[in-house]
């Protein structure tokens, strides 16, 4: 689900390329979406030009569970974006379906504070304003 978040400062707008557009279109629709290689079945990272496994160039977009594994976490006390609110909690996580693919997400509630590396997260996407839709992480399995 896409959720509204109280607006803070404008965030840099991601500039998709042909490779990453599936991911960002999915983000706008509120879903974690990656491309799966039609040749060997490996998931591709958002920026990958071809399948890293077989070098195939044919993909099908796939909506994933949104489940991810927590790797890192930090609370930023300086603005991460110009004029942005502080403190802000950011997490780094790995996509559950293929942990070779890492993503950054916001923790807008601070609820990951009680988690440890390896704990499960659920990712959704929030409308940050200005056409920017970003991953938001919460503890636990996907809704």
């Amino acid at each position, binding site marked *: 689900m896409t959720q509204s978040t109280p607006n803070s400062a404008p965030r840099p707008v991601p*500039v998709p*390329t*042909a490779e990453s557009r599936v991911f960002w279109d999915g983000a706008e629709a509120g879903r974690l979406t990656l491309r799966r290689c039609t040749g060997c079945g490996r998931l591709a990272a958002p920026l990958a030009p071809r399948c890293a496994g077989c070098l195939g160039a044919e993909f099908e977009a796939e909506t994933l569970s949104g489940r991810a594994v927590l790797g890192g976490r930090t609370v930023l006390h*300086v*603005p991460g*974006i110009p004029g942005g609110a502080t403190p802000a909690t950011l997490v780094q996580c790995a996509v559950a379906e293929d942990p070779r693919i890492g993503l950054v997400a916001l923790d807008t509630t601070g609820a990951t504070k009680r988690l440890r*590396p390896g704990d499960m997260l659920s990712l959704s996407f929030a409308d940050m304003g200005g056409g920017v839709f970003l991953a938001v992480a919460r503890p636990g399995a996907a809704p």
Partner: protein
Amino acid sequence: MTAAVAIAGFGASEIARKSDRGIAAFALDAALAALADAGITRSDVDGYVGAPFATNAGSPHAECGDEISLKSVMGMMDLPLAWGADLYRRYPTDMVASAAHALAAGTSRFVLGLRALYVAPGLDYATGGSDRAFGADQMTRPYGFNIAGARFAARAWGYMTTHGWDREDLWNVVSLARRNAANNPDAVWRDRPLDRQTYMDARMVAEPHGLFDCDMPVCGAQAFVMCRGEDLPEAATPAWVTGFSGFARPNAIWDMSGRTPDDLATAQLYDGFSSMIWEWLDGFGITEPGQAPGFFRDGHAEPGGRLPVNTFGGSLGEGRMHGMGHLREGYLQATDRAGTRQQETGPALVQVGPFDDSSFVLLEPDRPRHAA
């Protein structure tokens, strides 16, 4: 040069005024065409040389935006590398390795050379601080994850939480840096001791890093000259480059030098943020996985300790020289020229760069017997 070398094949991508495809797609097209032209496959490639920086005047310097480096090329080709670092990169350790390759080649059988340029959409001069996020930045900048070492802080949190360390252990690193800096006449913090309470009370930047866990930006420059032994000037004091390696194959440094971590007399480990210093103590097996902070807690990294670390104060004590200070100290320690901070004169390890982009050099006082 003792070997005849040749260009075995050439490949090119389409050339376009603008494109909807990213720079990585062009880079990969060219790379695959070159491999095909040379009659080899990607599994034959064991070296890489690129020129990833500043591809145009208004460059936002965005990996996979208008630049391309080994980190991305490895990921998109699953490259098996014999050596494991880009042969042309910004870190001083890479500069040594590149120079060594130029002076005495032979570390790779097939080196993939790649340069990619890109006109990012709507990009003008001096738009580096753009309100848009290009390339790999699109996955991090909108979150603020590129700011204030957030990605290193997030990794430090994971490490400390997993292995049970706390800010006391970061203080141990910062404290050692300040005390060592006092013996370095060039260090920006040489006359500024720091006490534990001041450290703990300082404002947070990106948890678990506070103000003093971050190195200080400075103006400065350091430089070096390298040559082959037969060309060594009579007045020179050589530190012999006996090994080097990169993040993708760190242990290649021991294979090349015939040394082991037990042989090290000193280690200069990159510390742009305090927690980064732990990475390769664990990575090289000098400490058990997750136990590097204990090495500092128990005093083993102190001058005169089991393996003195950052004897010049590191970036946290000397200032942000992006690893050139580490390389210089490795040279001074290996040549018995470190003055009051001189440790045992022996193999000196230098590491520069973040955990996922590091490279390594081993400097020694004695000319290696096995080298030509």
